[in-house]
């Protein structure tokens, strides 16, 4: 074989190995959790509260808690992120201020989640007197997802051709009319995709909710948004490291992990479906 052919083959092989390794790691994690956690999955596990010092019963309060917190996250972060993105991309004069805002957003996405947790304590729990609660945690996670939501929304707005805006403006549309009727309808699926992916990340976070409202154990379901709550990631953390009989609750920990991963997978599937449909539509528009 010629030396070039050998180099070519070596390069090609290493690329494939690297790619396959990623797949292998992902499936390794999934298989491990599935194998260890599947045995505890049952209707009882999903529909009951923990009993006997978390060694029996289910994880319903944690599922409900994570669900409610995610809901607050969406309600808080999606409009805020979308509006910021619309302002930045459509209205703002592209000067120093906008550059500063963009730089801040980018850096915000690099802030460790535990720092968000501390900030959430200071702002929502203390200053706004929301206490340690679903509301505080949801809004803290909302802040965490904002950089994702804003960036994805801006990207979605950028994919709408300028000719849609110009065409509307030339017909005497105001800028807001042009955006509302001729830009947003085509950008919103992309915006939602970004928001959901951000949420999927936030739903698995532990540190921010640990400080702002997640509780060690509350067998009953929350009655208001100002209640403390149980959440899947925090419950998992407790079962895996804080429980007095870790060996005994290990299967429950795996079961919890499985539920959490399934939840996030569901969110991703929703995001992918929206994106897929949107792409098909966008292709038709070309």
């Amino acid at each position: 074989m010629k030396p070039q052919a050998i180099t070519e083959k070596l390069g090609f092989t290493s690329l494939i190995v690297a790619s396959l390794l990623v797949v292998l790691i992902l499936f390794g994690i999934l298989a491990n959790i599935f194998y260890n956690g599947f045995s505890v999955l049952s209707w009882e596990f999903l529909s009951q509260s923990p009993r006997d010092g978390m060694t029996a019963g289910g994880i319903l309060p944690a599922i409900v808690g994570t669900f409610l917190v995610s809901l607050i996250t969406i309600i808080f972060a999606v409009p805020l992120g979308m509006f910021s993105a619309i302002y930045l991309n459509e209205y703002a004069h592209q000067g120093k201020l906008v550059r500063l805002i963009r730089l801040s957003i980018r850096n915000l996405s690099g802030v460790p989640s535990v720092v968000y947790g501390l900030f959430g304590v200071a702002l929502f729990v203390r200053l706004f007197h929301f206490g340690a609660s679903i509301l505080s945690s949801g809004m803290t996670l909302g802040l965490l997802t904002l950089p994702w939501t804003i960036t994805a929304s801006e990207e979605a707005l950028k994919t709408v051709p300028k000719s849609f805006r110009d065409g509307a403006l030339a017909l005497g549309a105001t800028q807001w009319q042009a955006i509302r009727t001729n830009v947003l309808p085509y950008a919103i699926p992309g915006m939602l995709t970004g928001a959901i992916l951000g949420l999927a990340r936030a739903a698995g976070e532990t540190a921010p909710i640990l400080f702002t409202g997640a509780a060690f154990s509350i067998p009953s379901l929350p009655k208001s948004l100002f209640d403390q709550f149980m959440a899947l990631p925090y419950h998992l953390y407790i079962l895996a490291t804080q429980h007095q009989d870790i060996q005994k609750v290990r299967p429950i920990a795996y079961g919890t992990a499985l539920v959490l991963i399934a939840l996030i997978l569901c969110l991703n599937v929703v995001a992918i479906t929206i994106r897929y449909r949107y792409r098909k539509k966008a292709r038709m528009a070309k």
Partner: protein
Amino acid sequence: MFPLLSSTHPTNNIKITVRDLNFYYGPQKALENINLDIPSYQVTAFIGPSGCGKSTFLRCLNRMNETILDTRIEGTILLDGEDIYAPEVDVVDVRRRVGMVFQKSNPFPKTIFENVAYGLRINGMKDKRKIAETVERSLIDAAIWEEVKDRLYESAMGLSGGQQQRICIARALAIKPEVILMDEPASALDPLATKKIEDLIQKLKTEYTIVIVTHNMQQAARVSDVTAFFYLGKLIEVNETQTIFTKPQLKQTEEYITGRFG
């Protein structure tokens, strides 16, 4: 250099008056000292080589250049004697009076009906029957009604390029502008579709003042009453189309028209 159109032209009505116009992209001057009168109910063509500023100038006439960042304009543009750049003038009103058809046909990804109804809806027309009537009228006026009347509720994206462009013209006509600006409306079309657009322009000038930018000199000669020749951001010569094409006064114009440069 004032072209004295008002004295040589059959109509004395000037729709748009441009005086001492300069236009800048950032620090770069794109248009320099343009003075021009655009007559009512006539077709005025802007010709000149690529990058000469004719499209930029066209977009000054309905303030579309304001959508481009970091641009600046000096001088005055009067529409029926009113300064369209005056601070108290609403840009939205200007664009309702001065419609525009773009170089690349840009129908919205909506139905044919909704494309033409778009301008009516954003202008607050609610009466469904009136909207339907206006859409039909506009499609007839844009010479495309016969081709689309059975598929009004299909996407405008499924039409051919020439049909799309006529939808865009219908869309512009629907809000009853006084002036229609056309930026190389046929540059992406085949000869047959081009002919349709040109015939349409001839028909429309009885009701509208039309300004068209074109690369194609034959097209300017065929459709326009007045031709303005631009070069390097300056208006070189303007006159009745026949005169420009038979007896251009300046050597530069003659060289461009006869194809020696540009």
